[in-house]
């Protein structure tokens, strides 16, 4: 096989694997979005609970507000990640199409010695490279956005832990406030674990 054919033979399964990986990332992001929605509802309940508890839970109320803002920010962030994932799916799909297209063109052109046919193939390969570069750019952007999301979730974890501390000052409401803050902490940890696994996805290990 020529070098170009060897490269094409490697690219096809890699693009297929990338597509599977990006689909899994998308599924994980969808589950994080669902959890983020749950935090929003939990934060609303926590705000009402803090209001009932009055001055004793003022600090808890402030943190609940912050957690509600956090859940909204997280949803926005996940929405942006979903957009990037869809862009990656588009690019990988196009690359899969390019690979088949180029294989067939190469076979056709190989039977001819006309230089103008080789030029058509060369133009196709330049276009393929452009698509590959676009995909590499999307992949880098997705990785950066995931890192940002992870940092945001770590901040959410700090808020949840602070809420746990504030709950202890809630006097007669200490038990329900503590219960709510533990739920926050658990949910934020769940998101953190999800994002942590996404950060280490083999999808980002591919150059």
């Amino acid at each position, binding site marked *: 096989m020529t070098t170009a054919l060897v490269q094409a033979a490697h690219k096809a399964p890699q693009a297929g694997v990338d597509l599977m990986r990006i689909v899994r990332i998308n599924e994980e992001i969808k589950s994080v979005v669902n959890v983020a929605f749950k935090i929003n509802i939990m934060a609303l309940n926590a705000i009402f609970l803090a209001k009932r508890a009055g001055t004793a839970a003022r600090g808890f109320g402030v943190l609940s507000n912050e957690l509600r803002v956090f859940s909204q920010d997280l949803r926005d962030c996940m929405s942006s990640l979903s957009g990037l994932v869809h862009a990656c799916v588009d690019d990988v799909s196009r690359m899969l199409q390019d690979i088949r*297209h180029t294989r*067939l063109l190469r*076979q*056709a052109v190989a*039977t001819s010695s*006309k230089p*103008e*046919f080789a030029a058509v193939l060369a133009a196709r390969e330049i276009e393929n490279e452009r698509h590959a570069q676009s995909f590499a750019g999307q992949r880098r952007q997705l990785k950066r956005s995931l890192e940002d999301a992870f940092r945001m979730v770590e901040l959410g974890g700090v808020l949840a832990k602070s809420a746990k501390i504030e709950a202890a000052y809630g006097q007669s409401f200490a038990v329900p406030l503590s219960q709510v803050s533990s739920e926050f902490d658990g949910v934020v940890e769940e998101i953190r674990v999800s994002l942590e696994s996404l950060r280490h996805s083999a999808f980002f290990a591919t150059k």
Partner: protein
Amino acid sequence: MKTTRTIFQDGDHKWIAIVRDPDKPNHLIDTNEYLVTHGGQGMLLDPGGAEVFPAVFSALSSEFDPSALAAVFASHQDPDTCSSLALWLEFNPAMRCHVSWLWSGFIPHFGGNADTFVSIPDEGADLSLNGLTLRAVPAHYLHSSGNFHIYDKVARVLFSGDVGAALLPPGEDGLFVEHFDKHIRHAEGFHRRWMGSNEAKRRWCERVAQLEIDMLCPQHGAIYQGEDVQRFINWFDELQVGIVNG
């Protein structure tokens, strides 16, 4: 690689059949492509599926410059007729694709852009190939609901898409029908199952019986010539189609 056979020639007006690929994988249906040339330009009729593109391209380019293909004609929307469209466009992005208006929003999934497609109305149209008129003859529901054949009045050749098609066993795959009765057995099941309308079939038979045809060229199988053309039309007229067991 496929082979080319010139089945009509008058100066630079030619019909070239691109047929039979011994290397074709068995899971792909065999197809015939036909190149019509006139005045240095070419129109490829049912250019074929993407997977057979290398074989068709190689054969065609041995006879004709692929970048001089002015147009392709897709008799209908099936992948074996034109899923190679995007690949042909690589060699001439200005190439046009003539197709039934019914499929002009579907075939772009195989490639091309808004400028590529020229819709053919249901009643048919005259397509021009550098001054040569090729008539798009309606063949709707045979088998596709938007279906055309191409008639060249000068060459007296009818490209008949799936009508006349036969699934030939190995060893009986000559370019022309030699023994009609023997050959037609390989066409019968195909026509009964694929052709959906007796009414449409009757109209087509009436329509083409009025044309002067020396060769009837299907997309699969062998070419009918001489008296076999009328023999085929009569046979088809009698056949009950749109039948499936089960």
